């Protein structure tokens, strides 16, 4: 599903953000990516989304080789992934419903398909009662659930989230993680960058640790709840 072979990324400023990283993430996995600030976690995700191009090495995501990919093929790659942002990135002047529908409209879905799919996804994230509200009328946790709904609505193979709980309080964070776990159980691969050790320990999943652009650790954390 995701394969990095000796991937290095050097920014134009000269920063070595990633150094010969090699790793494989299989379909259906739930992976946390941790590391100190500036370690290269966001760079890792941007390479997967092809927001950045590697300086050297090979990246394969959902069967597509990104380092050889042409610009016009990028949309097809993006349609295989749902992206969740730390700052939610909801459109203020659109309702919850329209924010989610927007992701479908953007890739040319028919109004009929949108009408069918959006309420289903909103129910999945527990926001069926808020579809006519605006983002400013929601709590942080609810806003992130809208973000999650938008990421899920096009039925992606994986969810990529860079600190999805960075802007919400711990209880809400836990709820979001539960939700992601639930989505993972249905077969969607989940990739989460996070600073919150408690969450990582609580969920007992694969943890990839990056330090100064190098993958220094890749282990299963023991789940407190499962053990």
């Amino acid at each position, binding site marked *: 599903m995701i394969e990095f072979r000796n991937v290095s990324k050097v920014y134009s400023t000269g920063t070595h953000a990633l150094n010969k990283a090699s790793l494989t993430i299989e379909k259906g996995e739930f992976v946390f990516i941790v590391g100190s600030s500036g370690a290269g976690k966001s760079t890792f995700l*941007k390479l997967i*989304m092809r*927001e*950045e191009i590697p300086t050297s090495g090979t990246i394969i995501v959902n069967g597509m080789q990104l380092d050889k990919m042409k*610009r*016009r093929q*990028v*949309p*097809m*790659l*993006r*349609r295989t992934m*749902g*992206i969740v942002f730390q700052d939610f*990135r909801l*459109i203020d002047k659109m309702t919850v419903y329209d924010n989610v529908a*927007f*992701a479908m*409209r*953007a*890739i*040319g*879905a*028919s*109004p*009929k398909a949108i009408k069918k799919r959006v309420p289903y996804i909103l129910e999945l994230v527990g926001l069926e009662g808020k579809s006519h509200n605006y983002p400013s009328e929601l709590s942080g946790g609810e806003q992130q659930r809208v973000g999650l709904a*938008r990421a899920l609505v*096009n039925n992606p193979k994986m969810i990529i989230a860079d600190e999805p709980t960075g802007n919400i309080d711990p209880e809400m964070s836990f709820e979001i993680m539960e939700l992601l776990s639930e989505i993972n159980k249905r077969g969607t691969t989940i990739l989460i960058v996070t600073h919150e050790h408690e969450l990582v320990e609580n969920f007992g999943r694969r943890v990839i640790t990056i330090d100064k652009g190098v993958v220094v650790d890749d282990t299963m954390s023991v789940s407190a709840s499962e053990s």
Partner: protein
Amino acid sequence: MKFSGFGYLIKEGVKNIWSNRMMSIASVGVLISCLLMTGAASLLSVNVTSAVESVGGENVTRVYLEQEVTDLEAVYITNELATISNVTETVFIPRDDAIKELEDTYSDAIFEQLQGEGNPLPNAVDVTMEDLSLYDTTISQVMAVEGVESIRDTREIAQKLTSLNNLVTTLSFWIVLALTCVSIFIISNTIRMTMYSRRFEISIMKSVGATDTFVRIPFVVEGMTIGLVSGIVTSVLLFFLYDIIMKTAQNIIEFSFVPYSQVGVWTTIVFIGAGVVIGALGSVVSIGRYLKKEGNELLGW
């Protein structure tokens, strides 16, 4: 592309115009001015060309033959003059007709006495030229024909008109070119502003896998609509203004202008077509740069 999705994108384009209405109105205004000015330049050119042509039609050069030339010889010379390449028509004017012409024009009894044997006028031939810019060459060919005495020289008028026509044509070409560039620049700026205010939506569209075409369509629709509206308004304005302007111009210099009915359909097609094309070009120019950016770079964060 599914048609349903397409309808959504068109709606978005029209919404863009509304949410950015001050800029939209301003660019429609500028575009109308540009179209009107380019239209005025082209129509001036058309009218001057037509004026030159009509003068050219009347501007038949009268070629006087030598006094000894008999009527029969004159007919031969008339035919010979017709073989010169730039000459489209030759008409033999017998001396008797020439004097009658004068009599008709001036209705003076003196011309009556000059008819017949006392006629001082030579036989003549009216020569019509196709291309006035070849006047000199053609005249020297005419003069070379045996039996030709002299010509009534209208070279000066012809040259003046021709050079005026050339000047107007060249000038209007550059005006049209310059104002087209200005129009494209104005539209692309307007679209760039809409894109800037829409950059957040664009970044989300790109993150969920919208194609460049999909991101582009609303902005192209916006540009084309602005162009279309400008083209229509300009055509309507011209419909009302054309006769007024031409009549005013006629008061200053005497000339017969091309009537609106003859140019109206064309100017309408050209204005609307040019508006739409300029609108589309303007938006395509401004979008390209934006589409290459990704994520935070697009957002300017």
